[in-house]
């Protein structure tokens, strides 16, 4: 059985990480930024999975599963915060918030 070298996975995850980071700093919509953060998280996860192939135990795989759960928690909390921000300011565009004294 032929194998794909780990370095190919690393390149793919580097591309994904850079894309996610660019989305995060480019877009002004908070939900869009959150999607960029998800891409970053998944790029890191891809690295863990790719390296878990080199390991006798399942450390990389386990870490990947826990990262998945933590990512879901982050998503739920962040979306509810964004919802509450929308109720306060009537928009979710980062950089346009003004204090409502």
């Amino acid at each position, binding site marked *: 059985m*032929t194998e*794909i070298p780990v370095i190919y996975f690393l390149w793919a995850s580097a591309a*994904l990480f850079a894309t996610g980071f660019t989305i995060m700093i480019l877009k002004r919509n908070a939900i869009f930024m959150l*999607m960029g953060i998800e891409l970053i998280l998944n790029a890191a996860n*891809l690295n863990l999975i790719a390296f878990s192939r*080199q390991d006798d135990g*399942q450390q990389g795989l386990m870490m990947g599963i826990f990262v998945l759960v933590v*990512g879901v928690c*982050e998503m739920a909390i962040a979306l509810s915060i964004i919802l509450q921000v929308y109720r306060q300011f009537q928009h979710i565009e980062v950089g346009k918030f003004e204090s409502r004294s």
Partner: protein
Amino acid sequence: MTPILIAFLALVILTCGSGLAMLFTRNILHAALAMFMCMLGLAGLYVVAYADVMAVSHLMIYVGGVLILILFGIMLTTQQSRENHGQNHLWVEQRSFFWSAVIGLSIFFALMYVFTRTQWELHLVGNDQSKLRDVGVALLTKYAFPFELVGIYLLIALVGATYIAKRND
């Protein structure tokens, strides 16, 4: 070019292409669709990396859960009252494209440089069989404490999310 390499290349093109589509589109709903394609490609990449358990759970959690959550978020926060100059409500404002692209590309090339220059000491030990049984046994023996901890964390996060999202007036 072995078949598995061709499959890997197709999946990478799907994943990174839809990531770039997310980057270049300005419609947030199109971006959610592109994120769906990206997650499908990532699940395929996990299969190619011999992590079938991870692929299935990724598919279930991201495509089934997180994407629905994001779509609900988009629907609940569309700005109806915004002055629309011939654009729809899903249009997203952007910062300067040039500087973001410069920062993103420099991060990409820095990562490539680090990955290429590092001397990896790798030795393949895994076999081609499914790891489902190993993962299940490990979750209940060696990793039982982190597993319970993550369960409690998930519970706390979900309760907290519903509490924060509550309309308090």
